[in-house]
């Protein structure tokens, strides 16, 4: 019995012949005498037979692809502009500096002049203005940045809160059919919202929030693939996933952090 427990994790590696030959031999001997392990290995073998069927299909599909021609097809789609740029930097650029010192000196002078002008007038400048695309009204760049950040925080908190309620609902109501369709609708809505939120979460200051939002998104994607009425096993899997990743705790912490930095 002790050995069965010890070997349990090694059966997949045993079936794939990934173990040391000596261990393989010991396990083979144990397998001959242990009906429980025989059953376990038989189950895994059946599973791997299914995998083999898919592999056969994969090999058939791969045989229909013209692998020799594919690199050329992909290369023909490469952006030509970038290629020209790369060639210029590889060869032509250096030659220009070598043979035209006058142009190089002029360019350097302009660069230094520009930098000095910037330094002299920088202190007198009232603050860089940024025009909002939507309104056309120019505002100081810092202000725009702050407004964007505050809005991003609010929307993230809102997203996290709705996700949290949904997760709690799923855990509490489980497979109740009346609520399942509604939950699916909410999952869909949250997945759509996350797509819009992604741009705002690109901000470095929201990295932590992004990580948790991505985890939630993955969970919702998994849930959206399941049927609306979760079976007991599915519900247990979801519950385990939420608990393993400590999603609810993380949501609370990130929410609190976002709210504090808002103040």
């Amino acid at each position, binding site marked *: 019995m002790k050995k069965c427990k010890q070997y349990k994790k090694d059966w997949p590696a045993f079936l794939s012949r990934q173990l040391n030959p000596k261990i393989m031999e010991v396990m083979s001997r144990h397998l001959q005498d242990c009906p429980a392990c025989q059953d376990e290995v038989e189950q895994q073998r059946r599973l791997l037979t*299914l995998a083999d069927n898919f592999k056969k299909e994969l090999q058939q599909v791969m045989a229909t692809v013209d692998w020799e021609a*594919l*690199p050329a097809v*992909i*290369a023909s789609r490469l952006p030509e502009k970038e290629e020209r740029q*790369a060639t210029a930097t590889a060869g032509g650029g250096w030659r220009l500096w070598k043979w035209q010192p006058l142009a190089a000196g002029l360019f350097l002078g302009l660069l230094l002049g520009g930098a000095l002008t910037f330094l002299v007038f920088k202190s007198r400048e009232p603050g860089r203005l940024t025009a909002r695309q939507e309104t056309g009204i120019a505002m100081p760049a810092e202000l725009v940045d702050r407004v964007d950040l505050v809005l991003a925080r609010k929307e993230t908190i809102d997203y996290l809160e709705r996700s949290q309620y949904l997760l709690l609902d799923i855990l509490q109501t489980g497979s109740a059919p009346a609520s399942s369709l509604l939950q699916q609708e909410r999952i869909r809505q949250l997945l759509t919202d996350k797509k819009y939120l992604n741009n705002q979460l690109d901000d470095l200051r929201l990295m932590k929030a992004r990580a948790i939002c991505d985890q939630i998104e993955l969970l919702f994607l998994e849930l*959206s693939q399941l049927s609306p009425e979760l079976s007991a096993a599915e519900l247990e899997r979801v519950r385990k996933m939420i608990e393993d990743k400590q999603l609810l705790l993380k949501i609370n912490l990130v929410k609190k952090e976002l709210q504090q930095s808002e103040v």
Partner: protein
Amino acid sequence: MEQKNGRADETQVEFLVDRVKQGDREAFMKLVACYQQKVFILAYSLVRNREDALDLVQEVFLRLYEKIHSYRAGENFQAWLMQIARNLSLDFLRRMKSRKKESLDSLDLDRADLAAAEADPSCFQSAEIIQKAVRALPEKQRLVFILHHFDDLKYGEIAGRLGIAEGTVKSLHFKAIQNLRKILTPQLGGGR
């Protein structure tokens, strides 16, 4: 340079990557030739459609060309490339999913398929079922399972490709098998 199974050693890959950084189209094509099948296997295992998988292979290598300057010499190139392939495949699946959602008829497609398979295990398409079940696995387990069973890589090779420890690969493989058995209990029959 290119071997039959598409493998190239690290020095050769570094050389090719350098050339690609300088805009060398030939080197790019060689790099594609080395890794195209690996990328295809990953993409096909996730999307299970020849044309979509081929489109993804093209997208992956075009993205690689675009981002090649962010690759630093000495990093695990395969792991880096597979990360791109994985991200693009998942993005593709997300897009497909949201398109599917727009059509009410297709909402219960997966559920109907699995239910039919449960009702008559003899007629279900085993390749289809295993592919769906593999897609339901958590990301890392799914990758390890695909690379081990469909790409025939050993634990050590998978560890190198994904940039993780060999023991972790073994453990992820074990978890993948356990989860697949749970998902496929009706098809496998008899399970505990």
